[in-house]
């Protein structure tokens, strides 16, 4: 028997409060590179991986979304609860943030009732000691009767011991019930309910205590799950009703209250607080300024301006010039001489230089700048500032029918729409979620940067940052107007509540920062190698040949025929040239494609003659607002959960983009004409 069990896969789940270091631990256990951030809700769906261990055992670990309780309300709670109840893990690792013991143990008391072997990974003890506090781990272990392993997920200490403990618990294979946490009176009633369930004998009762507690609380999911007959319901309720006569509070509250009382009775004994009254941690000191009633908004604007100034100002430009030099002059020049040296045919030279280098190269030269923006956004995310931004903005967002929580996805949208849309999963109600998904793509994503930068270099060299700033602001304005429109038409409803933890600030770790950036870099390189390369070659091919496969001038090419079919629609926006239309179509595959296609279609600086400055600006407005790329669309479809809503999003965005750029061009032309009169 022993041998059989040792060959079996041990299924482990990681459960714990949001932001307690679960994903960091998951990465340490599995050696994988999951996204980590310092805001509640980073993990929105469960992820699994194999645990690397020296014990030669096969251990599979699942990272669950962070939750405060096993109530069936928020999407994260539902995912976690279902996984714990249905998948019946062999061992539960409960990650407890030592700096926030009381609230973290509240979840522990619930997990312990699931009748599975459980081990507490006590995380961030180092931080606790820095604050001058101390936990008597041995005593806490004894009081709770749950094994505890102190770890530091970020420093990777104690993790091996944790794995050993998991294996030990699995090999022992039996569940040691936790000490009773309820008062005599409540416990008596819970036992009566357990007995009543025993009488009914309708299902397996290995989670008797859990079921009894949930029935006592009046948890509708549990009540509905068992399909009790009226008679059975009465049998169970008989005992529950007893409590009403003696206590004048509701049952959910009784259970929560007793859990917290139990926890307090323990923490009083095991935690020694050394910090004097009025002690301010570093986090508190930062918050004195950052969330100060008067400084908060100016500070927020300052942060945003700095992100903008660094990305588009001198530091970003320096990076771009360097990259452009490397790609166009060094790589392009080198390849060109190489091809000439080997006497490559004209079309091959044209393919490499006019197709691949012009197309993919033009976009890659913007990569360092995009990375810079990503590093800055990741710093905000990892430090804990995102939650503060949500807190500061809640009141304003309420005017447009959203809660402060929607602000995190919106800010992330400046990086990439895909994770931003996925992050809407943390929003508590459907209306907020749909509304946020509808407007997040208007937050100009970093893939659109190459297009803006390409245009300002030709048209707005003197006041480039101003034009880009205007574009970003316009995106936000359109987002707000759209939210107002939808809020008062098809997405009416009550505001979601705003009960949110403000996690302490943490120093962003270089490793986590690198993970964010690497994630994005990898994504970009994959796209450059597939979509952008493919599109550049295809565009080069279509514009170099006509339908009878003769190499012709672009104006007579296949591409021209296709582009000319769409182009008239954009005449009113000022860019009726077929090349512009073609680039917009390729932009649906990836936004950078707009830039790479334009670079192929307008060789050298010929783009400068193809657009008037006003038409160029109008074109940028269209690029800013129109439908996001395929990857983002698929994320939108996934999160909207309905084809109808995806269609609404796409049609709405295309229309808004067209309308806004037409408005810009026509209005601009009018002003120009008036000026001339």
């Amino acid at each position: 028997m022993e041998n059989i069990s040792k060959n079996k896969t041990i299924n482990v789940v990681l459960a714990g409060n949001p932001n307690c270091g679960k994903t960091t631990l998951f990465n340490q256990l599995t050696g994988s590179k999951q996204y980590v951030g310092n805001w509640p809700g980073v993990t929105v769906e469960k992820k699994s991986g194999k645990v690397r261990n020296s014990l030669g055992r096969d251990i599979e670990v699942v990272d669950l979304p962070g939750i405060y309780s096993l109530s069936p309300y928020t999407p994260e709670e539902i995912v976690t609860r279902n996984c714990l109840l249905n998948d019946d893990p062999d061992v539960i690792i409960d990650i407890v943030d030592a700096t926030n013991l009381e609230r973290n143990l509240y979840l522990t008391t619930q997990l312990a009732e699931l009748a599975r072997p459980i081990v507490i990974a006590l995380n961030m003890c180092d931080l606790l000691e820095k604050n001058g506090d101390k936990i008597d781990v041995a005593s806490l272990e004894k009081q709770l009767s749950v094994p505890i392993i102190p770890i530091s997920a970020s420093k990777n200490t104690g993790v091996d011991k944790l794995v050993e403990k998991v294996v030990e618990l699995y090999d022992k294979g039996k569940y040691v019930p936790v000490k009773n946490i309820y008062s005599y009176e409540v416990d008596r009633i819970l036992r009566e309910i357990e007995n009543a369930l025993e009488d009914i004998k309708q299902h397996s009762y290995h989670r008797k205590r859990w079921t009894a507690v949930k029935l006592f609380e009046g948890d509708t999911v549990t009540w509905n799950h068992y399909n009790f007959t009226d008679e059975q319901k009465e049998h169970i309720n008989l005992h529950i009703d007893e409590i009403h006569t003696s206590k004048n509070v509701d049952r959910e509250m009784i259970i929560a209250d007793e859990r917290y009382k139990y926890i307090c009775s323990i923490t009083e004994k095991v935690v020694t607080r050394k910090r004097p009254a009025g002690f301010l941690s570093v986090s508190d000191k930062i918050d004195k300024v950052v969330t100060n009633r008067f400084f908060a908004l100016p500070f927020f604007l300052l942060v945003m301006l700095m992100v903008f100034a660094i990305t588009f100002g001198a530091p970003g430009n320096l990076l771009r010039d360097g990259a452009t030099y490397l790609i166009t002059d060094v790589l392009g020049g080198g390849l060109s001489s190489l091809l000439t040296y080997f006497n490559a045919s004209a079309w091959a030279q044209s393919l490499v230089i006019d197709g691949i280098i012009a197309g993919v190269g033009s976009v890659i030269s913007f990569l360092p700048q995009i990375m810079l923006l990503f590093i800055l956004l990741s710093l905000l995310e990892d430090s804990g500032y995102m939650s503060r931004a949500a807190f500061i903005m809640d009141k304003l967002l309420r005017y447009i029918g959203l809660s402060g929580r929607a602000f995190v996805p919106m800010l992330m949208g400046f990086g990439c729409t895909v994770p931003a849309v996925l992050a809407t999963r943390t929003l508590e109600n459907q209306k907020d979620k749909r509304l946020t998904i509808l407007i997040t793509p208007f937050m100009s994503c970093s893939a659109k940067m190459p297009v803006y930068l390409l245009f300002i270099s030709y048209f707005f060299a003197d006041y480039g940052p101003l034009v880009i700033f205007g574009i970003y602001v316009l995106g936000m304005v359109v987002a707000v107007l759209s939210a107002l429109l939808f809020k008062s038409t098809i997405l009416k409803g009550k505001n979601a509540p705003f009960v949110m933890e403000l996690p302490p600030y943490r120093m962003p770790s270089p490793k986590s920062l690198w993970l964010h950036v690497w994630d994005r870099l990898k994504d970009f390189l994959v796209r450059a190698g597939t979509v952008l390369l493919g599109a550049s070659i295809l565009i080069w091919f279509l514009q170099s040949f006509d339908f009878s496969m003769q190499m012709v001038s672009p104006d007579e090419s296949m591409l021209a025929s296709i582009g000319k079919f769409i182009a008239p629609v954009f005449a009113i926006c000022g860019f009726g040239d077929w090349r512009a239309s073609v680039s917009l179509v390729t932009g649906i595959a990836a936004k950078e494609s707009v830039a790479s296609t334009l670079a192929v279609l307008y060789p050298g600086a010929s783009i400068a003659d193809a657009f008037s400055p006003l038409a160029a600006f109008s074109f940028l407005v269209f690029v800013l607002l129109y439908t996001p790329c395929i990857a983002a669309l698929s994320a939108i479809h996934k999160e909207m959960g309905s084809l109808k809503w995806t269609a609404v999003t796409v049609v709405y965005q295309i229309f808004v983009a067209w309308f806004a750029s037409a408005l810009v061009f026509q209005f601009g032309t009018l002003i120009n004409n008036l000026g001339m009169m």
Partner: protein
Amino acid sequence: MKTLDDLKLGQTGVVARLGSSGALRRRIIDMGITPGATVKKLKTAPFGDPIVIIVRGYELSLRVSEAKEIFLEE
């Protein structure tokens, strides 16, 4: 009855009972706001809403409308 919203900045109070209902109420309970818990009003957002309180040793933000449903002992 006195509510959490009535506290001045820096003042503490002890929770007596909760109003509101359903998921919101459950959420508030789960976050540790139960009868007997000590709460301290820490700060307010730029527009006077939401507020931040300290409960069970951590910072929690909630709206004024939600704070009005948290009744304190006199």
